Structure formats: C-alpha cells, structure tokens
C-alpha cells in the first residue's frame, strides 16, 4: 500500500483527516463568529457581517463625544530612555548652565531645604520638570522665570549634567533604617503603590526622581501639594492619586525615611 497516492480523495486517510479538520474548523468558525456574538446579552450588532467583524476583532468606531478639557496646563512631555544617552559635550554645556541653578539647589547637597538635590538625578527627571516649568504645567515663583528662558537643548544639557554628577550622601544619613510599609509595599487596599516601585530600589520608572537624601521638608511639601492639587504636572494624576490616599503619618514616615537614606 505504500505506493498509494496520498493527496487524493480516494485515499481514506487523506479524505478523513482533511474532512475532520476542515469540518471542525468550519463548525468552530460558525460558532465563534456567528452564534457566540449573538449569544452575548450586551451585543449591539446591526447585521451578520457586523457580528463576524466584531468576533474577528476588526477595530470599530467608538462613540465620539466632547472630551472635557482641564482649565489648566497639563504636562506634555514625551520621553524615551534613548534621549538621555551619555554625551560629554552636553554635560559640559549643562555644567555652564547649571551655575545659575546652584544659588538655590546648591552643590554637594548644600542647597536650601525647600529645593530638591539634583546631583545624580536621572536625566529624564530633570528634563521633565524643566519642561513642565517652561510650559507652566508646574509653577513656582522662583523657578518658573528661570525655566521659561531655557531652550530644548538647554534642558537636555542640564539633564545630562545632573545625571552625570555622582550622588552624594546627605548630612544625616542612616543606612540601617528599615523601610516603612508605605515605601516597601504601599497600601494596596487604598490603591497606593509602593514608593520604591517607581522611585528606585524595587524599580525606577522613566521620569521619576530618586528620593534618597532629599530634604524631608521638600518631600513632604510636594506630597501635600499633590494631595491638595496645588501641583498637577504628574501624568494621568499618578502622584495625585497616591498622595490623596496617603495618611499624614505615612507622608511623614516616607519623608523622614527618604531624608535619612544615604
């Protein structure tokens, strides 16, 4: 029998296998594309073709209505991690520009308590805040006038310079302090993600600053500003949603813990 022709309907193996597989395919196509779409109670199908298209996953027009526009400027920063590849010339230009920053942000962590330390911050974090200050998505009486003058390249240069500098330990660092619950694990029952899941240690997300060694006063002030809505340049309200759900005690704990980190 081995000399028999295989690809012919006269061969029972061919006929049976192609027939069974084909029949199963056709039956399941009918079930999946006609019967089941009509079986869903929520279906708003207009025709048989509509049912087939919906089961095939063809993108369909959704209801379009006016989207509510906020009455304030929102952040419009778009970044990817390749924007912040190391570049020595950019660092050099950034160093010159940064002379005007040092008056408040200091150097060697000697800035004012109500300003963040910038040395060693990820480039994406520096760049995003500068962009937001420039377009007034974030405002500050002192900072905004500085940012308005900066060009796109200036901001990238500053980002390159600060991310190039090494991080330095704060004045009261204590490496032994245990991470409080809110930092390590957040508060899942209140939909609060762990601080460390974006701000370093567990994971670092593009555009988030590191918090270790920042002044407790600054961290607390920013969390409260997010909670009250005074600061709203966070994309999709991610920090506002978190800060609103944090208790005053948790804000204190997180601020004190991060301030004490080396």
């Amino acid at each position, binding site marked *: *029998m*081995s*000399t*028999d*022709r*295989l*690809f012919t309907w006269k*061969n029972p*193996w*061919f006929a049976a*296998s*192609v027939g069974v*597989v084909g029949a*199963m*395919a056709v*039956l*399941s*196509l009918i*079930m*999946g*594309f006609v019967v*089941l*779409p009509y079986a869903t109670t929520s279906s708003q199908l207009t025709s048989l073709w509509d049912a*087939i298209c*919906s*089961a*095939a*996953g*063809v*993108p369909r027009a959704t209801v379009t209505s006016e989207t509510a526009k906020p009455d304030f400027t929102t952040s419009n920063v778009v970044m*990817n*991690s*390749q924007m*912040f590849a*190391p570049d020595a010339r950019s660092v050099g230009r950034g160093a010159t520009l940064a002379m005007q920053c040092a008056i408040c942000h200091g150097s060697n962590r000697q800035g004012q308590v109500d300003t963040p330390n910038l040395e060693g911050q*990820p*480039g*994406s974090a520096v760049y995003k805040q500068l962009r937001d200050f420039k377009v007034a998505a974030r405002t500050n009486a002192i900072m905004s006038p500085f940012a308005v003058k900066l060009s796109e390249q200036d901001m990238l240069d500053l980002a390159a310079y600060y*991310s190039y500098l090494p991080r330095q330990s704060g004045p009261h660092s204590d490496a032994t302090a245990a*991470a409080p*619950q809110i930092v*390590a*694990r957040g508060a*899942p*029952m209140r939909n609060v993600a762990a601080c*460390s899941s974006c701000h370093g*240690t*567990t*994971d*670092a*997300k*593009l*555009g*988030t600053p590191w918090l270790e060694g920042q002044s407790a006063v600054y961290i607390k002030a920013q969390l409260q500003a997010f909670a009250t809505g005074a600061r709203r340049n966070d994309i999709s309200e991610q920090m506002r949603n978190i800060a609103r759900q944090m208790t005053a005690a948790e804000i204190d704990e997180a601020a004190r813990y991060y301030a004490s980190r080396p």
Partner: protein
Amino acid sequence: MLNSKRLVLAHFWLAFAVFGLALLLGEWQMFVRSPLNPWISNSELYYRSVTAHGSAMGYVFPTLIAMGFGYAITEFALKKPLIGRRWAWAGLALVAVGAVTAMIPVSLGLASILYTFYPPMIGNPFYYIGVVLVVVGSWIWVALMSINMAAWKRENPGKPVPLAMFANVAGAYLWGWTAVGAAIEVIVLILPVALGLKTTIDAGLSRVFFSWTLHAIVYFWLMPTYIAYYTIFPRAIGGRLYSDAMARIAFILFVVVAMPIGVHHLFADPQVGAGFKFIQSVFTALVALPTLVTIFTICASAELAGRLRGGKGPFGWIAALPWGNPMMLAVTFSFVMLGFGGAGGLINMSYQLDASIHNTQWITGHFHLIFAGAIVIMYFAIAYDLWPHLTGRSLDSVRLMKVQLWLWFVGMIVTTFPWHYVGILGMPRRMASYDYANPAIAPQALSVSISVFGGLLLVISACLFFAVLIRGHRAAQTDPGEYRFSVAVHEPVRIPVALNGFALWLTLMIGLTVVNYGYPIAQLLALKGNAVPAVYVGAAR
C-alpha cells in the same frame, strides 16, 4: 550500535549541567518571594534570576535533550550511522555559544525581561541573538532528522519507518514550525528595537507571534517523553506495545494540532478577536486527544506486561507489574503528574474558566507540574536507560535511582499543588515580593512556604540524579548489548503511506496555521499606530 556516543553524551551532559544550575536559581526564587524571606528590596535581581531560569529551562535544556535523544534514536532505530555528524556537532556548538551569549547580558542585569520577552520591554541585543543561535542550532537537528529518515526510506522502499524514528521526526518537524513564530518576533520585531534602529514596537503583534511558539514548544519538550512511553517503557517492563498504529496517530495529531492553538495564551489580550480565541480554544481541546490515546495505549501495554508476568483478574495485573523497575516508577509518576497537570490544562484552555486563573500562580504551578514534573522525570528515565549504551558501563545504583524518582515526584507535588491553590486565591505571578502581613494575602503564606520545601526536595533529587550518572561513569566496563526499542503486539509489516511520512500532516499543520493565525496577524500588520515606546531594561532612566 551507536557511533555517535560522544555526540549524544555531550548533548545530555550539557543539558543536565544547564538544568542543575537553573534548578538552583528556581529554588532561590521560591525562597525569596516566600514569607520565609523578608522583602527582597532589589526585585531586579529576582527578575534577572527568573530570566536565566526560564531561558535555560525552556530553551536550552529540553532542546538539547531532544537533540541528543534524537541522534541516539536515529542510530539505534535505523541501525546505520548518523548522516551529517559534523553538522550535528556544529548544531551543538551553536546551542552552547548561544546559551552563553544570552546568559552574559542576563547575568549583568541587562536583559531582565523573562524568557517570554514581554515587549515593549527590551533587553540587551545579545540576549536575543543568543536565543536565536540556540534555535538555529536546533534547526540543524531538525534538518538532520528529516534527511536521515528520507535516506533510510530511499534505501528501504515500502518498509515502515521504525516508530521511534517516526515519532522523533514528528517532534523535529513540530519544533521546526513552532520556532518560526518566536524567530519572526525576535528577528523582525524585537532586534531592530534592541539594536537602537527603532524606538517603538508593536507589542500586541509580538505577543501573537510569541503565542505561535509558546504553546507548541511544550509539546516539543513533551516529545522525548512520549517517545519513551511508546518505545522504551513496554520493553523495559517486559511487555509489548499495544498498538503501533495508535502511536503513530498520536504523534501525527501532535504535529497537526499542537501549534495553531497558541492564542489561548492570549485570552486576556485585547488585540485578538474573540472569534479566533474561540476557534483556538476548540482546537486546544482536540490536542487532549493524542494524550488520551497515549494513556490508553500505554496502560494497555502495561496490562499486557502484567499478564505476561502472571497477573490475573481485572486488577491483579497491576500488582504483577515490576514495581522495582525505575522505568515503571518513572512512567507511573509521570502519568499521575500528567493527569493532574492535564486536568489543570483543560481549565486553562477554556475561555471562561481561564478568566479566574489567568496570570495567577496557578499557571506557573500548571506548567511546572507538566514540564518539570511529567516531562522531566522521563528525561531522567531516558538518561538511565541510555547511559549504559553511551558509556559502556552499567548503572548499578538502582536503589538510588528509585529514591531519586520518588523524591522528584513528591517534591514536584509538594511544590506545585500549593502553587495551584494560591493561584485560585488570586496570587499574581511574576512578582518578586508579596506583603504577607496584609490580611488579604496572609492566607497564602503557609502554602507558599510549603512549596519552598517542595523545591528543596527537587534540589536533593537532582543531586542524587547526578550522583547516579557520575557513579555510572566510574563503574566497571560492560557490554550492554544491542539497544532495543519496544516491539508492538502486531509488528507493522506494511502500513498506509499516510502513517509512514509527514507530507499530508505538514500540509494540514500549515493550512490550519493559516486559518487560525492568518487573519489576526494580517490585521495587526495592516493596522497603523499601534506601536508603543520601547522600555529599555537596564538602561539609565
């Protein structure tokens, strides 16, 4: 008669060395995310380890076993030297070089993306290049298996291809086609982004291509196990294979329907239409058929052996089986784990039931029970069976073998049953730490702790496994005689042309792939604007 002893031994030893290292990583992962360990603050280390464990266990270990076993089968079953032995060494070298190339960036924390790649996460390009080299190395094996069978058929026109070789080539063809999905994903979609030529990637399309590979890869891992069920087990327990034709049909069914069903891994993904999810769910149900056929045929073969050994009555034959034989133990344990794992699999493949366990620890428990349990325990048994023929020395530590198999079985049950249970409680997978102090999660703490000890049993079992093999290398030389595969009750003399080759079955496999995957892939290719920014793992942020 085995001319390629060193070739086969090299495959097996490299496979088991990779397995031993990856097993230790697995146990470490179980420990650090259990309540026995306080918070692992740097979760990147955990994901680094998961990537290494998964890549080694998923891509390197079973591939090398299938390749080495395939070369052994070719010479044992066809009774002639392997054609293309130099190419086989080249394939092994590619797999070895690929494994090292992939593992260096993983160890450095530059590719902590898990072995399933998960775009838009993008790791170091060398990780992907290494994986591609492993696959290319295995494709050499696919080609060699096909060439060797074709050459034998030319020399023996009209004769049935020996079952072991037929099944072996089925596995090779299945893998050849299965690996195409991930290869397209890596080469066309991911590598340009990893190399910095693009900064966006269509994550949905990538996942569809990966699903092409992701399900059938398990059947590729399964093939050596099924070959051992059919062609080694009946002989090892002193019986005969119940049906040669049923065996061929089971392997053919795997070739046809194991691959075009991967979308059931995407039940929760929005980019594939519900209709295609339903069709693939139906065909996934069909793939239970070859396993059911196998369980029937192998149990029938065991009954024959039991009755030949004097077993009487409806159950007397079970007691008469050679329970002291490691192969008997291994197949029994494998079947028990396959039974539980298969039952779990039926839940996963159901569109509705899957919703309750999708992306929970249930899934991790499921594939460990099937792969690390039912499949790997047979890899051990295959090694025990082949070793005397590879080394020319007898394996005398039968007691140690039995303890090893028992420990692996018990360890795997203790590891995976609690794992399934916490999945039902809702514990998500792919997480480095859990807050067991949280009242919602606290009930999972005991189960997770238990499975850590199950993992410990597995590590001990692996140590015993290595001890048995190493003692085998130091034993006195002996002549193991000719290697024999099982003989069927009715030995095939002439068989239908359909059961002696793959032309029809490969056509059906590709046809079914076009029906099940053609539209979803074409649609995603045609859609504009669905690429998302890549997230470079390990890059400065």
